[in-house]
């Protein structure tokens, strides 16, 4: 199994140039965009030239580009993104405290996407070209076509405002906002650690709508992929062989077809994660969810330079890491991957 270790090391090494390109791209984008970033950040017309110069110095933007670049890299390596001008706290602190919220939402999204997407995809492939297949495909395309924020608004209106079954927004109800001291900031985990059943229920009620919303946004992609991959596998000779060996259809599908169909699905999972984070921006905005994406949007509104740069780099590194994990996972399910 030394092979896998070597593969992982190689894969990690390959991630480095990618991160480097990403960091450089972010840097260039933020510095070379038309328009003066300082002016843009200060956001007003009536700003004195002195203030502009002062800010420019403060942010090191008066130095030559390559010096700025090296400073930036040095910062990033130390995970030091400076202070947020909006909140006054270090950007890294802001991101760290918000990450659990985003992760809780993202896991929910992946969970529901897999639940709706993979199961319906398999179902559609097995019943290819029957009416149920067409219905499922329509559902897949439909879930892709619905603007996710709009879906969130609809859910809010139906389940929160009209039916009053679930809360409209936020992670917990108002009463907990002051009494509840988060430990891990993963609220599910916190509620369990605190042995507070009511809190757990409250957290779940707040979580379910945003998680389902985010999940549906991904269902279309995942479902279509699953169906296509499954169709291809079901057509393969080895599936015919498995069937003719006398295996029950359930065994053929679960043991022979599914694993092979999952291989291409896992490869796109990494890309899905980038889409998921994009979806999280919208979901967090709709549901006032206190996560990283919401933080980015508010930082943009406030022209909070350090926070914007820090958040983008953070998200990029985060997604690259997830892609890395997905790739390694892939090499484990597919024995054909040569280490």
């Amino acid at each position, binding site marked *: 199994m030394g092979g896998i270790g070597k593969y992982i090391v190689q894969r990690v090494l390959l991630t480095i140039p990618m991160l480097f390109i990403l960091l450089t791209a972010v840097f260039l984008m933020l510095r070379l965009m038309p328009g003066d970033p300082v002016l843009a950040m200060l956001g007003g017309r009536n700003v004195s030239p002195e203030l502009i110069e002062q800010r420019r110095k403060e942010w090191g933007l008066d130095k030559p580009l390559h010096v700025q670049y090296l400073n930036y890299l040095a910062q990033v390596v130390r995970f030091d993104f400076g202070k947020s001008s909006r909140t006054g706290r270090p950007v890294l602190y802001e991101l760290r405290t918000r990450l659990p919220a985003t992760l809780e939402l993202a896991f929910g999204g992946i969970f529901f996407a897999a639940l709706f997407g993979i199961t319906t995809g398999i179902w559609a492939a097995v019943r290819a070209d029957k009416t149920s297949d067409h219905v499922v495909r329509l559902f897949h395309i439909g879930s892709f076509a619905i603007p996710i924020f709009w879906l969130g608004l609809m859910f809010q209106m139906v389940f929160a405002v009209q039916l009053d079954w679930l809360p409209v927004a936020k992670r917990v109800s108002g009463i907990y906002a002051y009494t509840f001291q988060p430990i891990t900031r993963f609220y599910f985990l916190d509620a369990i650690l605190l042995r507070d059943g009511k809190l757990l229920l409250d957290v779940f009620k707040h979580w379910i709508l945003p998680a389902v919303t985010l999940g549906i946004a991904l269902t279309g992609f995942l479902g279509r992929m699953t169906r296509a991959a499954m169709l291809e596998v079901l057509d*393969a*000779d*080895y*599936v*015919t*062989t*498995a*069937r*003719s*060996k*006398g*295996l029950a259809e359930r065994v053929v599908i679960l*043991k*022979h077809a599914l*694993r*092979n169909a999952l*291989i291409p699905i896992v490869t796109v999972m990494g890309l899905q994660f980038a889409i998921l984070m994009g979806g999280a921006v919208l979901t967090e905005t709709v549901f006032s969810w206190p996560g990283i994406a919401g933080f980015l949007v508010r930082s943009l509104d406030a022209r909070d330079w350090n926070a914007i740069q820090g958040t983008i780099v953070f998200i990029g590194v985060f997604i690259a890491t997830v892609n890395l994990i997905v790739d390694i996972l892939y090499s484990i*399910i*597919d*024995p*054909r991957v040569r280490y």
Partner: protein
Amino acid sequence: MGEVLSVRDLRVVYRLPTATVEAVGGVSFSLAPGEILGLAGESGCGKTSAACALMRILPGTAEVRGEAFLEGTEILGLPEDEMSKVRWRRIAMVFQNAQAALNPTKTIGYQIAEPLQVHLGYSRRRALQEAGTLLERVRIDPKRLRDYPHQLSGGMRQRAVIAMALACRPAVLIADEPTTALDVMVQAQIIELLKELRDEYGLSLIYISHDLMLLSEICTRIAVMYAGLIAEVAPTGELFRKPLHPYTRKLLGAVTKLGFRAQRLETIPGSPPRLSPPPPGCRFASRCHRTTEACGREVPGLEPVEEGHAVACWNWRDDGAP
């Protein structure tokens, strides 16, 4: 008596959205114990469709008619759950592309052991043990049970597929172009192995190939198919010595031979008829060099000529030996 498999008037019709294609148009043959019957023919002649029909693994668009008695039991009309007990246990198949017939994410051992567990109720351990024995029998190191298909060479993969097919000791094995994708040397290895296994396990084989020369090396009898029908069937030696159907003769004349440099090779003008629907008379009539009025009117049946030799041609008598 003593026939393992007897097929009567087998027909396969594909009902496609755009057309109805009669891929096999009424084929009858029988297989004696220990016999190796060759099904020869060019692409599209229906040889694979016929084989898959016997295994009952054709897609839903295909309609199968006729009868096939396997060890006395009619299998084409069996309910699917009965058939799934017969399939692989009494009649198994080796596909052309061994790479595709093996699941890339399961070990060779797992795949050979599977039918033993399903059909013979072996425990996992016993099945794997037996799989090891089978691998050894097809001359693969039993250590390779744990290998994945991509770790084997092309020849080994095909041998593993043969081991998988023979796991339950079936009475009949259908080999569909098992060596077409392989080199001659590996092909020779596989053929030698199949002959040995036939003797050892008392197998009967249906060997499908487009290569008449290859069939002459392994088969006891050869049936030449054309456009969904058997044109001629004869013991191997006899077919090569005394081919009667014009198609068989042309085919034999078209083959390049070692040691005999022909001035020209026989060619067959035109192309096989469309089978949607098939023409009314003899299907070879449009390409035949001697046709009579009967040829365009009615399909000739297989007419026995000698013991084991039959031909489907209206004019075989007039068309003296070559």
